[in-house]
């Protein structure tokens, strides 16, 4: 998995590309988010547009990231969920946990409310 982090309007936009699966991408996701949290970044938007595959380990890491950001008083939201990842989050009822956006501008604006 490849990651790219950029800042937009005080929000860290984390772009993920490739697979978030066991032994390949799952730990990388956690490390990327933890690094941001440890450096005091509290508003994180994870862009999933180019994520090709996710498994239960990847979902677990996503949930772990959500919890660690929330516990530090921050917000982690998701952007551009591919349909199959949306399905995977829906069947485990995690879709109700995450704030999910289709538009980056709407997602960025939501951090200000």
């Amino acid at each position, binding site marked *: 998995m490849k990651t790219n982090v950029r800042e937009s309007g005080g929000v860290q936009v984390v772009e993920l590309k490739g697979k978030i699966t066991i032994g390949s991408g799952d730990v990388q996701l956690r490390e990327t988010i933890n690094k941001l949290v440890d450096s005091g970044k509290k508003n994180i938007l994870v862009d999933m547009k180019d994520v090709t595959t996710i498994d239960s380990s990847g979902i677990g890491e996503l949930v772990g990231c*959500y919890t660690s950001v929330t516990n530090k008083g921050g917000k982690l939201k998701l952007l551009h969920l591919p349909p199959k990842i949306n399905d995977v989050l829906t*069947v485990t009822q995690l879709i109700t946990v995450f704030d999910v956006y289709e538009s980056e501008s709407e997602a960025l604006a939501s951090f200000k409310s």
Partner: protein
Amino acid sequence: MNAPRPSAKAGPIRMSLSSRFENIEMVQHLCGRLLEGREVEEETRHWILMAVREAVANAIKHGNRQDLSKHVHLEMDVVADTLVISIRDEGEGFDPGEVEDPLAPENRLKTSGRGIFYMRTFMDDVRFQRHPRGGMEIVLKKNLGRIKEKEENPA
């Protein structure tokens, strides 16, 4: 000369793998090849391959605990329009009845415990049993529906 076309009549695929996560991709690929000779919808194929991924990952991580001296034993076949996949590890086994429900509110935000749930969601039948030769065996089944094999040599 054309490469031989994958055949749904190719018979079972049997193999033993070392406990490396890298092998998950290979198993998915082979399962995909097994389905290639059949008219399985892309959506169905995707979820079958995800269930297979979860089962092999489970065997490597929780069964064999990534011990490279232990193997994952696998058999895949299509029997009377049903895909049957058996995956056995060499671990100590577990009681499937003790697996927590990932949908329970207290488990919703746990970082693990969803693999078996996904297998059960995406396959028609998922059974666990302690194998006589040791280890835990998972048998996954998916009815491929009233799907007829593609003609190998259409007239």
